[in-house]
């Protein structure tokens, strides 16, 4: 008859492995499954106490066994993260993204030279306030409470992001004492570019995770 360990027993094994220096969740899960399979195999052939069997199985492994596996995993992840960054960075240099960056650069340059950049964030805030009031009084019933809150949250976050972006740009100008609009626009575009790459990298990692955990 097949023996299957229960939740508490699995938790006990996982805790034991963690105490031996394994902090990565996937390494811990893999080791827990391995030890649990061994324990279950033992319990089929002999009618013994679970804790006795666990002790017996763990005796097979020397003190540094789990730590070694953890160390290898750490090295592997370091290599992988550098590789993903390199791929993400190089992935940016494709045709539509470069055109978009150039457009962004010229839009920023135009806004800087016209001196209008400071006001855009405030205008957007005002727009969000008016929109918020409008949606609250007239559309709440139609959209429903959840959708209204989602929409309001999205616009507020966007408004904050735009303001932070503009303030950063002005900060860059002040920090380097730059009066040259070309240079400040280029630096700001570069900052947006890195933010874009970072978001892309996170998106890819999450996608990979969702594929792995089917």
């Amino acid at each position, binding site marked *: 008859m097949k023996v*299957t*360990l*229960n*939740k508490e027993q*699995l938790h006990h094994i996982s805790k034991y492995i963690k105490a031996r220096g394994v902090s990565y969740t*996937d390494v811990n*899960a*893999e080791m*827990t*499954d*391995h030890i*649990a*399979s*061994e324990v279950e195999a033992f319990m089929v052939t002999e009618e013994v106490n679970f804790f006795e069997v666990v002790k017996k199985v763990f005796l*097979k*492994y020397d003190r540094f*066994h789990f730590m*070694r*596996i953890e160390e*290898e*995993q750490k090295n*592997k992840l370091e*290599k*992988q993260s550098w590789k993903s960054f390199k791929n993400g960075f190089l992935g940016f240099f494709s045709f539509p993204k470069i055109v978009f960056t150039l457009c962004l650069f010229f839009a920023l340059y135009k806004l800087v030279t016209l001196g209008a950049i400071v006001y855009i964030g405030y205008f957007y805030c005002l727009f969000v306030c008016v929109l918020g009031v409008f949606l609250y009084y007239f559309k709440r019933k139609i959209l429903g409470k959840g959708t209204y809150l989602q929409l309001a949250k999205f616009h507020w976050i966007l408004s904050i992001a735009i303001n932070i972006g503009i303030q950063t740009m002005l900060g860059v100008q002040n920090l380097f004492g730059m009066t040259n609009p070309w240079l400040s626009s280029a630096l700001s575009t570069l900052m947006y570019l890195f933010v874009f790459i970072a978001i892309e990298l996170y998106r890819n990692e999450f996608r990979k995770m969702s594929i*792995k*955990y*089917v």
Partner: protein
Amino acid sequence: MSNKLYKGTLTNVVLKLLHENGRMYGYEITKKTKEQTNGGFTITEGALYTILHKLEAEEVLEVEFEMVDGRTRKYYKLSEKGEKEAVVKIEELKAFIQNLSGFLNPKSA
């Protein structure tokens, strides 16, 4: 039997098992190796996971996680690159055994 003799062939053994069985998890690989060699060849867990993680990092193996009996199980399978590599390695292993056999039994060769 000395495990030192097997050490160099461990990767090939893992590749061969995955080539034959599709996807497998760590404990299953150790069990299968023991069964197929009637206990004559055992892979230690330390060596096995070192190899599996190394092959995973080299993208020779792909992994899948699945919930089995209330716990997360990590399955390994050969990637496209791994399939090609497995065929080459198995051939290399066969040639090695043949050469060794010829060396040990000069008369029969």
